[in-house]
Each structure stands twice: as C-alpha cells, then as structure tokens.
C-alpha cells in the first residue's frame, strides 16, 4: 500500500504543480484550467448523467470491436501458422494492411456503416485484429514439434492438438498482441468519435472544447486516460493468472 503510494507520488506532485500553475496564472487558465475546477466539472458531468451516457456508448463500441478482433484475430493467426494455404492467402494481406495508419480508415468506415456504433466497432475491429493476428501467428508457429508429436502419440486428434497444445503454447505471444490491441482500441475509439460521432468520449471532448468548457473537456480527457490505465492494469492481472505456470519457477 505504502509502496504503491510512493510509486505514484510523482503523479501527485504533477497534480499540485498543475493546480498551482493555473491558480497563480503562470499559464493562461484557458489553456490549463485549475485541477480543482476540472474535478468540479467532472462531478457535474457525472451528476447530470452526461458522462455516464457517453461512457456507456464508448465502452460498448470498444468491447464490441476488441472482442470481435480477439476472436477473429486468434482464429486467423493460428490458421495461418497451421495451414499453409491460409498463410499463402492471408500473409500478403496482413503484411500490406499492417503499416496502414488505421485512423485513415475512419471516413471509410463511416461511408460503409454511417455515423453510429457500427463504424466505430468496425474500425476498432480492423485495427485491433492486426496485433492479435500477428501475436497468435507468432505464438502458434513456435509450437514445438515434439510436444505436438507427444500429444498425437497419446491419442489426441489433429484438431485436439490445436486446442490442447498449439493454443496454450501460443498464449504468451497472443496475450501480448491483445495488450497492444487494447491500447490501440482506445486510440481508435477516441479519434473516430472526435471526427464523426453523436456520442462517446471523443464526441464529448470535441463538443465541450468547441463550446469553450475547457474544465469539463479536461475532465473527460482525464476520465479516458484513467480508464485506459485501469483496463491495462486489469488486463495485466488476467495475464499474470493465465500464465501462472510460467512464473512459478
């Protein structure tokens, strides 16, 4: 507990400096409203339900897009590692798609699916699928021949081996890929909502900023930052438990 406090002490100092910089007008309060005002604005946003409404739709988009990308990316990656034809078919597509800045697809997904949830989910799905696929592929490709053979000699079918040996073997790399995808999903969510949306964190940040309510805008920015951080921490805990067998030694 005390250790954690000391660890995050720099954040507390940063908060203090922020407050002082604004209070003593070292910087313009338009550019940086005092942190205490930001907190007050945050409470107001919570009370009138604005923040919760927009959070709900953002979280729906993120979980939809990320969830889909995990399922599809895992299947594609393992498929590519395990069946040559799948690899031949998909490898060049993944290769070319990999360096495309996914935010460039925001207008495209809007043309396809409109201004609502669909286009955001599709964008997050497409963007996040890449690191998940690559993680699953690298993990599955490294699966040890002798382990596969051992399972086969114990009576496991080829499909069974995929589930019992290749999947768990690919897990460390796959979970790494998903972590990258998790971070990416927040980026894609907010940027797509900033550009075209009627609700969500990005929309809220954009409209509050345009309306000059900078303290409220900062409140939403901080909320997103905190959610991203909390999601990553929670995810690391899941990883730690899933891969407990690796750290016991």
């Amino acid at each position, binding site marked *: 507990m005390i250790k954690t406090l000391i660890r995050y002490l720099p954040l507390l100092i940063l908060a203090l400096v922020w407050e002082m910089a604004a209070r003593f007008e070292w910087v313009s309060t338009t550019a940086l409203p005092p942190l205490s005002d930001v907190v007050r604005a945050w409470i107001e946003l919570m009370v009138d339900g604005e923040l919760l409404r927009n959070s709900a739709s953002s979280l729906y988009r993120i979980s939809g897009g990320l969830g889909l990308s995990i399922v599809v990316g895992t299947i594609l990656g393992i498929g590519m590692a395990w069946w040559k034809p799948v690899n031949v078919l998909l490898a060049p597509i993944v290769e070319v798609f990999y360096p495309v800045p996914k935010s460039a697809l925001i207008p495209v997904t809007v043309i396809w699916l409109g201004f609502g949830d669909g286009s955001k989910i599709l964008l997050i799905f497409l963007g996040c699928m890449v690191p998940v696929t690559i993680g699953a592929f690298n993990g599955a490709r490294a699966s040890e021949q*002798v382990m596969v053979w051992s*399972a086969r*000699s*114990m*009576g496991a079918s080829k499909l069974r081996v995929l589930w019992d*040996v290749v999947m768990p*073997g690919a897990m460390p790399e796959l979970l790494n890929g998903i972590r990258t995808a998790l971070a990416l999903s927040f980026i894609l969510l907010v940027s797509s909502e900033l550009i075209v949306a009627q609700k969500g964190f990005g929309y809220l940040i954009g409209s509050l900023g345009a309306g000059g309510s900078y303290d409220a805008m900062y409140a939403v920015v901080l909320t997103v930052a905190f959610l991203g951080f909390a999601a990553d921490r929670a995810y690391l805990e899941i990883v730690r438990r899933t891969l407990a*067998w690796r750290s*016991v*030694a």
Partner: protein
Amino acid sequence: MQEPAQIVVDHISHLYRPPRGREVLALDAVSLEVRRSEFIALLGPSGCGKSTLLYLIGGFLPVEKGDIRIDGKAVAGPGPDRGIVFQHFALFPWKTVRGNVLYGLERQGMPKAEREKRAMEYIELVGLHGFEDSYPSQLSGGMKQRAAIARTLAFDPKILLMDEPFGALDAQTRGLMQMELLRIWQRTPKTVIFVTHDVQEAVLLSDRVAVMTARPGRIKTIVDTKFDKNDPDIFKNKFFVEKVDEIWNLVKDEAIKAQGKRSA
C-alpha cells in the same frame, strides 16, 4: 516355432529435406525386426538417421519407401500403442506433473477416478511423489525426464520409443536414470527402441544393439548384448567390458566418417 517379430522395418529409405539446401538420403534400405518385450538400442554417430528411423516407427514422419509393420499392420500415423520419450522431455509446461501424466489417460477416455489413481501410481513409480502439483519449470532435468517417462508409461503403450532420453542430463543423473529405467522395464516389460550415441548406455540397457553407419544410415551390424543386468559391479563385468569394446570398434569408424563429412 519362434514368435513372429512385433515390429518389422522392411527396406526403409528416407530423404531428409532441409528447409534450404539439397535433400540428403537419411536412411538407405534399413531393415530391422524387433521381438515383443525386447529392449533394442539404435546406436550410431549423430546425423546417421537413428532418430529419423524412430520417428518413422512412431508414425510421426510419413513412410516414403519401404514398409513398417507393427503386429502385421502397416504404420499409418502415431497411435497410443507406441509411446515416445524425447531428449528434451516435451512436457506441457502449462500443466503440472499430474496434469501431464493425466493427459494421455484423458485422451483414452479413462474414467476420472481411475485415471487419477493410475496417474499417482506412475508418478510414484518414477519417484516423483510429492511433486505431482509442480510445474515442469520447477523441476530439475532428471525430474522432468522422470515425469515424461511416467506420462508415457501411464497410458500403457505396448512399445516404448526413446529418443536419446538421457542425452540432456548430467553424468550422475544419467547414471541414476539408466538404473531406474532398467528397474522399471524389468517390472513392466515392454518393447523398447532406445536411440543413443552412448556405447556404454546401449550395452548396459539393451538386449541387442543395432549399430548404424554414418549417413546415409544403414544397419551395420546387430550385436547381442543380453546378459544379467542386475550385477552390481556391471561396469567391471567381463562380458560388459568386451561388448563395449566390440561395439566401440564398430562405431568408431562411422563416427570418424561422420566427423569428416561435417568438416568437409
């Protein structure tokens, strides 16, 4: 009349295709017969194809030329009649010792209570009692190999294929494990094909030693090495010393040939 051989390897040739470079003839018309409950060692210099032959018998590699039959039936893929133990254990690192040993029994569809009991029996047989809930990463090399042996013995294969199983262990552990294997084999007699490049190990453990030539692998000679293996002073036993000497002379030329090919 003598019982027909359990394993018949009939004029097997096999091409090894490296990911890049030219293909090499790994095995050249190898024939071998192994009787039920016999312990046979495949001995030869590295690269002579002895492991390849083992993998072909295991059904892990496709038979391209020739024929391998087990109890009269042609080998078509791996099966639980042939258990295998690898040099680097091939344990599932995400399963405990118990989980590893249970895996084969689960695949055989053995009822839960029975397989739990069976798994513990074999964990005890290999001397891993108290380590059943450990993960492979928590075990020493020797203990890992004990776990791998328990895993393979537990689902009761008729044939045990061993691919340099003690090659990754230090000398003391190796010596202990050899004694242990002999003890286990005498209690649960199975047909064993044991790949090694260690002459003493081959003579110590097996009934017959098949000496293979340098690449392309052929069977050069088969030496009978059946004698009382329970002699506490076995390493000074005259028969043992003579056999080691005889086989060493056979294998020496091949080892030198293999060295020459590598440096060429």
